């Protein structure tokens, strides 16, 4: 019950459906932030390449589990040929996964796994390992000792928790002389994160490093350091990319950052969906990878390919 | 005079009651008493403390000192409920109804008969009781109407009905007739006599002193928050009462009827009609003239005024100002053209109650007191406000007093001051003396006369025929949305006006 009534459905939008193009609906964890925009770009690249039509939506924030469920429900009601889904909460989505299965709509999980048998594959980054890499670099950069703080975007979302815990656990296990003095949350909002980081620096005059767990958080830390005029006195390790982080690294304000491969995530998701529709074999997981980048490698082709502005 | 067996049964005794508000000594050791089956009138200038004393009885204010005894027992009245329990019921001077509820719901609020484990309102019972009450009182109103859709006078009728519905032993009426016309007033008086028969004690407050002769048994005079004297109504000369009220002799009322000498027409209204009520209303207003509008409640005078000043849209008709037709779409445009409108409903359309006296007086004239950059020269404006407070004898501790804290009559004076300051060429005054004491009325009459002498043109709508006859050069009489006559003052007297006002043979309001 997928492709026959498809023609009537797709209309408007950038994916504007002409004739018999197959429709793949992507429901992500977010929408407005650059990371998700890059995922969308990747998905659209693949769509062009494979001649399918994609739609892309996501909730306003990573706390909006219910909004995402509604979006997923509507996406299913739209009768797409395949579905891409980045679950904010797997459990909450379980019944809808069943519904997709019962309608024979193949599902590709992306960004993080879905605890369900339904998805044919998962295209994701291992956030915990990525955060551990950030911690490893932080420890090196501050010389293995001193106070470190974290500005995280969210307290409850999967990415927030994994990127925080991956970092904290690495330090606890591997760097006894590094003390994590403060963890604050700025919602990924640039202004809020700036204010959070400013207060943290005021509270801990001896702070040696701050880790910003996503783009907004990292830029907030950079802003705070700039505003206080203490560039270079605090080691900043970021996460994700974006123009501001790239600039901060090039200017030497930020030591370096972890980037995932959001374009690759989007691309691989659509590609896997197409393969599944065509009846081809799909690997069980697709590791889209993550990279540490700093001034030494920022211009490498491999890194440039995964950065977005 | 007094009926019933227990003639001397003392219902209520107030002894040495005092009440002060910040900066105002509203009551100072006031004494008052009431026996059953008596109407005891309470009179005094605006701000004398009448309403405050009544609010003490109604449980709205707590007295600072003094005792209140009901049936000889000293009582504490610590809330409206306590007052109700003591059998005290009050018709408030300021309308205190809930506009979004129906008449029946308003009357029986808090006393609904309940069904279903006390959870549901018995709506039918409510409407039936209200219907019976209205029948008993001779009120022709549908209990299911929304109060917010009623005319001011109709709301006043609802207030009265509400107070009567308590079957109270002590009934307080704070200016019940201020918004009523004569026929409704007559009906009210019949009710009062009826209640007396049944032993109810009534405290009656009014600025229409002629009424006292008709209903009151005793009259108590207050001045500046103090008790002055109590007199038997029958044997007392009203002029004596007035002199006690104001503390001086007041000059005699007889003066020549105004004659029209004006010729230049300022404003012409032609064929004014609204779907709602007005039919082909037309009249001229001349320079330096006071044009009175008379009619019964609902005759359409207010509606004419609102249409002329742009507050409501007329469906047809023409307004010609100085020979030129003008389109007036809002009171702001009217004011620009020099037409000011003082509404009969001061609470809704007149005052910003939370703002101070100065703010209210100045608000229509702010632009005249502003400099080029739009900043208000408040210093100067303040002197003007103070001048009007003095001229109109507005009783207030300062021009920075919140208007809400003024007595009803003084609030009315503030609205008048607002329009006097604006200095419009044409002023439409809708019931300008509502709730104003006798002394102050005289002063307002003088003011209107002198404005007319200065060449201003005034439309004065009033439900008090003597007032119209005293002031107006010419009188427009309306009935059911039509103009039934335009008379020179010389040709008019009360009978003639009433005749024109009832031309279609319809009487209104509380009719029996």
């Amino acid at each position, binding site marked *: 019950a997928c492709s026959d009534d498809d023609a009537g459905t797709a209309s408007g939008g950038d994916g504007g459906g002409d004739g018999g193009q197959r429709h793949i609906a992507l429901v992500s964890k977010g929408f407005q932030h650059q990371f998700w925009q890059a995922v969308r770009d990747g998905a659209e690249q693949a769509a062009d390449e494979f001649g399918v039509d994609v739609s892309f939506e996501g909730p*306003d924030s990573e706390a909006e589990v219910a909004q995402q469920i*509604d979006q997923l429900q509507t996406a299913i009601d739209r009768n797409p040929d395949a579905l891409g889904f980045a679950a904010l909460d797997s459990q909450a989505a379980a019944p809808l996964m069943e519904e997709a299965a019962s309608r024979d709509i193949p599902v590709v999980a992306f960004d993080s796994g879905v605890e369900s048998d339904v998805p044919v594959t998962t295209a994701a980054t291992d956030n915990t390992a990525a955060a551990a890499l950030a911690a490893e670099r932080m420890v090196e950069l501050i010389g293995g000792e001193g106070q470190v703080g974290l500005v995280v975007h969210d307290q409850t979302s999967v990415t927030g*928790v994994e990127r925080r815990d991956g970092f904290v656990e690495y330090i606890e296990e591997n760097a006894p002389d590094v003390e994590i003095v403060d963890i604050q949350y700025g919602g990924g909002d640039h202004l809020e994160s700036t204010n959070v980081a400013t207060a943290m620096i005021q509270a801990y005059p001896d702070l040696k490093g701050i880790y910003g767990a996503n783009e907004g958080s990292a830029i907030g830390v950079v802003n705070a350091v700039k505003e206080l005029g203490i560039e270079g006195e605090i080691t900043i390790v970021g996460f994700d990319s974006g123009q501001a982080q790239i600039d901060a690294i090039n200017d030497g304000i930020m030591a370096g950052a972890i980037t995932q491969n959001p374009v690759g995530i989007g691309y691989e998701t659509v590609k896997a969906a197409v393969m599944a529709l065509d009846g081809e074999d799909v690997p069980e997981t697709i590791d889209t990878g993550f990279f540490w980048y700093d001034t030494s490698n920022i211009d490498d082709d491999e890194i440039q390919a995964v950065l977005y502005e | 005079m007094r009926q019933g067996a227990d003639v001397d049964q003392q219902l209520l005794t107030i002894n040495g009651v005092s009440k002060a508000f910040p900066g105002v000594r509203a009551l100072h050791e006031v004494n008052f008493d009431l026996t059953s089956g008596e109407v005891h009138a309470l009179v005094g200038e605006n701000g004398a403390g009448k309403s405050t004393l009544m609010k003490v009885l109604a449980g709205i204010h707590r007295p600072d000192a003094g005792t209140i005894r009901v049936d000889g027992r000293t009582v504490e009245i610590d809330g409206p409920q306590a007052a109700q329990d003591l059998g005290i019921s009050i018709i408030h001077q300021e309308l*205190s109804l809930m506009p979004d509820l129906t008449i029946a719901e308003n009357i029986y609020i*808090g006393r609904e008969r309940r069904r279903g484990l006390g959870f549901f309102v018995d709506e039918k019972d409510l409407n039936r009781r209200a219907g019976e009450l209205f029948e008993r009182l001779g009120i022709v109103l549908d209990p299911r109407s929304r109060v*917010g*859709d009623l005319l001011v006078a109709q709301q006043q009728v609802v207030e009265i009905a509400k107070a009567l519905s308590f079957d109270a032993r002590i009934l307080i009426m704070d200016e019940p007739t201020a918004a009523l016309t004569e026929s409704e007033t007559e009906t009210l008086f019949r009710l009062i006599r009826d209640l007396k028969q049944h032993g109810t004690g009534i405290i009656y407050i009014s600025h229409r002193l002629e009424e006292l002769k008709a209903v009151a048994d005793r009259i108590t005079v207050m001045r500046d928050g103090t008790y002055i004297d109590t007199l038997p109504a029958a044997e007392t000369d009203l002029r004596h009462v007035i002199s006690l009220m104001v503390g001086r002799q007041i000059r005699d009322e007889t003066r020549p009827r105004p004659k029209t000498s004006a010729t230049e027409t300022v404003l012409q209204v032609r064929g004014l009609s609204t779907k709602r009520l007005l039919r082909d209303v037309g009249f001229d207003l001349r320079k330096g003239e006071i044009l009175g509008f008379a009619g019964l409640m609902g005759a359409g005078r207010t509606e004419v005024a609102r249409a002329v000043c742009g507050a409501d849209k007329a469906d047809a008709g023409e307004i010609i100002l100085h020979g030129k037709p003008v389109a007036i779409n809002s009171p702001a445009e009217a004011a620009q053209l020099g037409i000011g409108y003082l509404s009969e409903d001061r609470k809704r359309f007149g005052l910003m109650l939370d703002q101070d006296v100065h703010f209210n007086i100045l608000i229509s004239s702010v632009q005249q007191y502003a400099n080029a950059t739009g900043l208000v020269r408040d210093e100067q404006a303040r002197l003007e406000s103070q001048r009007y407070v003095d001229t109109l004898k507005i009783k207030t501790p300062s021009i920075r007093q919140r208007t809400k804290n003024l007595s009803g009559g003084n609030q009315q004076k503030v609205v008048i001051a607002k329009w006097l300051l604006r200095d419009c060429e044409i002023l439409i005054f809708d019931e300008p003396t509502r709730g104003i004491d006798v002394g102050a009325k005289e002063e307002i009459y003088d003011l209107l006369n002198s404005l007319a002498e200065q060449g201003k043109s005034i439309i004065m709508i009033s439900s008090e025929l003597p007032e119209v006859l005293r002031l107006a050069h010419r009188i427009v009489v309306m009935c059911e949305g039509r103009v039934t006559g335009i008379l020179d003052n010389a040709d008019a007297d009360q009978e003639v006006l009433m005749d024109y006002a009832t031309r279609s043979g319809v009487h209104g309001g509380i009719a029996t």
Partner: protein
Amino acid sequence: MKPVDTAERASGGDASGGTPGAPAEAGTRSPLGLLRRQLQQILAFASLIVLAGFFSIASSNFLTWSNISGILLSTAVIGILALGTTFVIITGGIELSLGTGMTLAAVMTGVFLVNLGWPLAVGVAGGVLVGALIGFINGVNIAFLKIPPFIATLAMMLIAEGLALVISDAAPIYFTDVPGFNDISRGNLVPGLDLPNAVLILFALTVVGAVILNKSILGRYTFAIGSNEEAAGISGISIRKWKIIVYTLSGAFMGIAGVVLAARLNSAQPSLGVGYELQAIAAVVIGGTSLQGGKGSIVGTLIGALIVGTVTNGLRIMSVPQEWQTVIIGLVILVAVYTDILRRGKGG
């Protein structure tokens, strides 16, 4: 407003031989007036019907039973919140702790059922009571301490948000091991009818809310307080008591919304909820209830919630890009309310 009493005065006045004091309800008694009022009631759905018509033409997937039941399901939580807060808004108050209060109620339901292992019914009742308690505290702050409703409930919004995180340790609580809990929202109580229980609960609460608002003492006093609080007080109504009851009632609806939400997600998400209060208040106001107090209706609120739910769903079904969805929803709200104003201007 004016035309209302005109109509009546014209007709009523004539009939009874001149009663200027005649009533105002537009032609309540004439058959014509009755017809007109019925028509108006139907027209209140107009925007909704127009919208639904438009979307069914635009997308063949819109008017499927599965999608309609999806719209209703997605409206359920906001709708339940909106129903309860209609009472608060009619008193002239406001309720900003709706979203996070609901979350706290959901989290506490999780604590009761999962951590403490209470029986299903007891745990659910506990969750609803937590909502009622939050409302009660709001009511006390507003009625006794005279804190303006905006502030009292804003503070409660923050307190509930924080407490939900503290209590849940910032992690979702899963109801996977609580049999039957999920069915509260997703099950089908009425066998033949393919409507999830959450929707049935929404409808049932609409009926309950409408009865309370229109027939009960509480409803009467709700209108009285919003219409003129001072006058209501002078009339001997205990403003404090009834305000507290109104906020508690709204809190109970919030608690129910929390349970329905948790049951739908089969988990209590502690960081969800901020922003729901505005959506719920918007539904109330789109439904014709005035923020000034004194006026409002429960059915209007349901329609308001459905309008928002329908537009959101319709645009998604049409695959309109998300940024444009937001813009269009904004425009639709404007147009819906404006046509409602026009309609009432003429019809009234």
